[in-house]
């Protein structure tokens, strides 16, 4: 029990003192995951709308593929991109490995299937009359789809929350592609892994509590957005 109380005390002290190193890992985590979820939304929502609204021969296969990609282990995404981004890999000349950009790419890949999958479900579950009605009222196809998205916006935000939850909490991509560089690519999760490896369990757990606090704050914020 001493271990738990010690970590509670440590996390409170770290938050109150605004420890610069902890602050840096929190901002890195947030910056990387926010960039990634914006990119994932730009790719995943349109993809989900296309799959959800159209009937095409391999539709079931496409949905199964999206479902499977949701189960992709983060280290596998990390390994794959590592091979591509390393100096020896096809995109090596860009020098992206061990930078925040590499982490953004990896986390985007992790979040896209989740966002797309949720969007498929949300679009399919929407009132089927919305789109035809909008079209007969003189809206263009794009306008019609936007109208539909407006109707299901809560579902879409839920998709983004789910995607964000996956990537802010993941450690595989951040560790492999970021390299856990202090003050540059160290995130909340890689810092926790490091402290654990040093045997600083209470400190690691304290960082975990801070991560949960940050996640709570973000979800409260999104909640108020949804309620408006």
């Amino acid at each position: 029990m001493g271990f738990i109380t010690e970590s509670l005390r440590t996390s409170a002290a770290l938050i109150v003192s605004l420890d610069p190193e902890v602050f840096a890992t929190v901002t890195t985590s947030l910056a990387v995951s926010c960039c990634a979820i914006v990119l994932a939304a730009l790719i995943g929502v349109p993809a989900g709308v296309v799959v959800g609204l159209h009937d095409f021969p391999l539709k079931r296969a496409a949905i199964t593929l999206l479902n499977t990609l949701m189960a992709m282990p983060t280290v596998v995404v990390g390994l794959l991109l590592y091979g591509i981004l390393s100096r020896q890999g096809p995109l090596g000349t860009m020098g992206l490995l061990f930078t925040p950009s590499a982490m953004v790419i990896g986390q985007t890949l992790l979040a896209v299937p989740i966002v797309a999958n949720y969007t498929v479900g949300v679009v399919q579950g929407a009132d089927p009359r919305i789109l035809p009605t909008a079209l007969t009222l003189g809206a263009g196809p794009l306008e019609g789809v936007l109208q539909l998205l407006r109707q299901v916006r809560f579902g879409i935000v839920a998709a983004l929350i789910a995607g964000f939850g996956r990537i802010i909490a993941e450690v595989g991509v951040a560790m492999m592609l970021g390299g856990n560089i202090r003050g540059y690519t160290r995130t909340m999760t890689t810092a926790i892994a490091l402290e654990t490896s040093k045997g600083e369990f209470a400190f690691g757990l304290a960082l975990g509590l801070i991560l949960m606090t940050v996640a709570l704050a973000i979800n409260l914020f999104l909640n108020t957005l949804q309620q408006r």
Partner: protein
Amino acid sequence: MKLFLKLGLTLTLIAGLCSVAVAGERLRMSTTTSTENSGLLKVLLPPFEKKYNCTVDVISVGTGKALKLGETGDVDVVLVHARALEDAFVAAGFGVNRRDVMYNDFIIIGPANDPAKVRSAKTAAEAFRLIAAAHAPFISRGDESGTHQKEKELWKAAAMKPAGSWYVESGQGMGEVITMATERRAYTLADRATYNAYRSGKTDLKTVFEGEKGLFNPYGVIAVNPKRFPHVKSDLAMKFINYITGPEGQGVIASFKAHGEPVFFLYGNKGR
């Protein structure tokens, strides 16, 4: 649509606020976990970064992987401890300008009651033979790190091929292995720096064998070969090597203490 707009704007704003502009060049160094986890780099790097207005990005992994990162040109300089592998790295043309930096040593640690009677051993190889003969649990790093290389060397010297349920290949870092050995009441080979950091409250394992010449653990710094990888920052890498092997860097290493004890030693004082 307003909701998405607001959401997008907020997220972009957070992302923008968080992306910090960093001045100067970045030098990328792969190193072993012991240099980072002991806290040495925290005092060794800032004077260099200040002097040359640069940032040193440290990727701390096992020695095997640290050298791999050099072989693929993903880092500019490596700071590792596995002399044989380092020489092979230079011979294969991946690295240039290898220099000795400092040393510490390996120790064999185990439960205080020493069930395998390792304390009676005269050599490290004999100590390993005793552990194997008693089938006392032994945790191996199993991760191709510098410590793992040394361990394999010692099994070879003992003319043994460790196998069986007593021999645990963990595939984890030094810290995790000490924790695991503590929990399982097992023996392990540890570098003194990491063990010292663990001795105050994190492990009750004791040093059961130490002091043999074969347990010497030298650290070397190597610049990644710019002829092979034209993109590496070899100027800055050379400046870094000169710094840590020069009076300034060596002074920092000599005065560095963890838990009140010196951890790394210079070649000037002792040894070669």
